[in-house]
């Protein structure tokens, strides 16, 4: 009951401040299993994309929340679990892989090696495991493959989590999304948001082609997100 009221309040707030406009360009809003992947500029991204989705999709779509930030206070924890139905991801765990850097030709570790090294660690748990559980459960996901918030114009190189998920769940539709302007609403370190119109643009779904390499796929996914900025 309280969570319902909170979600109504948050929706009203986000709409008054940002308009929370959803622009469906490459695909219609549809209740199929999807993985939305978007650029990450602010903690409010989560709220923004949640508010932009239509009511029916909001209940079956679970956003990813950074564990260290969103469990800092009891209120933040309550809001992410009860209202957003979010999945916590431990950013410290580095998503199991090293980030893919663009332009450098450093030979990348094969994902299996990375896993093997980490698994020897007694505290190891695959950071993707909660996401895999949710997808097996049939939910859709919202992920931010940059891992951390970027300050630059262009999104940072994507981390491998998206690739791993796409490999494990080929039936899930991968939808790129561009969140526009949100970093102006509440820059890092500020408490009071200012009203500025924001939009979330959803693009045409991409697929992991047979035999496509990890890095090539992640770059393509990143380009798909960037391309939506100009739509």
């Amino acid at each position, binding site marked *: 009951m309280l969570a319902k009221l909170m979600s109504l309040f948050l929706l009203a707030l986000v709409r008054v401040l940002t*308009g929370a406009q*959803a622009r469906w360009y490459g695909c219609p809003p549809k209740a199929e299993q999807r993985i939305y992947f978007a650029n990450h500029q602010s903690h409010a991204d989560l709220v923004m994309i949640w508010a932009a989705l239509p009511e029916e999709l909001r209940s079956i779509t679970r956003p990813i929340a950074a564990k260290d930030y969103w469990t800092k206070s009891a209120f933040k924890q309550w809001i992410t679990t009860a209202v957003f139905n979010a999945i916590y991801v431990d950013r410290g765990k580095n998503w199991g892989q090293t980030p893919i850097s663009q332009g450098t030709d450093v030979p990348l570790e094969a994902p299996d090696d990375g896993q093997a090294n980490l698994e020897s660690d007694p505290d190891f748990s695959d950071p993707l495991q909660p996401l895999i559980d949710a997808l097996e459960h049939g939910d859709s996901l919202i992920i931010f493959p940059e891992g951390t918030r970027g300050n630059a114009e262009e999104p940072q190189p994507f981390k491998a989590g998206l690739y791993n998920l796409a490999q494990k769940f080929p039936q899930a539709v991968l939808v790129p999304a561009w969140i526009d302007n949100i970093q*102006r609403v509440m820059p890092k370190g500020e408490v009071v948001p200012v009203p500025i*119109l924001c939009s979330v643009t959803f693009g045409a779904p991409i697929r992991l082609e047979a035999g496509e390499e990890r890095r090539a796929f992640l770059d393509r996914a990143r380009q798909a997100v960037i391309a939506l900025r100009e739509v």
Partner: protein
Amino acid sequence: MNQFLRGLSSTQQVGALFVIVFGILVVVSVTAFLFTFREQAGGHDEAWHAELKNFRKLLRTSWFMVVVFWMAWAAGDTAATVLFAVMAFFALREFITLSPTRRGDHRSLVLAFFVVLPIQFWLAATEHFDLFTVFIPVYVFLAIPVVSALAGDTQRFLERNAKLQWGIVVCIYGMSHVPALLLLDFRSYQGKGAFLVFFLVFVVQTCMLVQHIATRRLKRPPSAPQVSKSFNWSSWMLGMGAGSLAGGVLSFIPPFKPGQALAMAFVACAAGSMGHLVMKALKRDRGVTAWGQRGISVTGANGLLDRVDALCFAAPIFFHSARWYFGA
């Protein structure tokens, strides 16, 4: 007719005006709607097609404005002030969205939206007209750059501040004069505020509508092609004439005499149409044709500034000239 109208109470007079305006709008809208059938049957060309579509768009704006003002009038002074405060909020939101602000402007923006805007409308609602007049041009004018300077970001400092100041003056200061007009009491005519607002909106909208139609009909070369592809002096003069005449016709309700009504309407139309042109230049500078977000209207608040910009410029000038001339 004139004697009969003058005999009514001011509430009845304004009510009668709304009935007349809604009647005109209904007739014009139905006619325009019926024309859409004719164009398919007859051999009308593309241009005629586009013209009608454009006209219907303008008609929708007129409907929107009239309904808003009717609601404001019917709901009473306090509700009207809140309504215009909300409109100022959304208009400023659109303005800021298209002005590139930097991280250092955050506190100034918070100040503009959550401090300046409520105070300005509170001053209007409580009829503190002396402070109301100078609050933004004097106090806020200084406060905003101070807050920006304290943020320590000097890059394009003047430009960023100028844009913010502009947004505040047009969206908050301009808009707040509409509810202020509602509350303005003339010495001998109590409760004429609603009529003044009606007068202002009616003449400005008439001027804009006639100017628009004249532009389409005359097809003169634009006088300022860099700014607006449609603005030219001859259709502007036609619009001004029509707006002023509409004001003169409305003189059957005091406080205005026919000559005064004509002059006041002229002032309001000049301010409104020129303000609209200025806003067009601003939009061109930002590389957009409309304030609505990339021309897509989904949220409902989009493009609000396109509809109210003429009013934002006309209201303060109308308010202050009325106050000065009539000593209200």
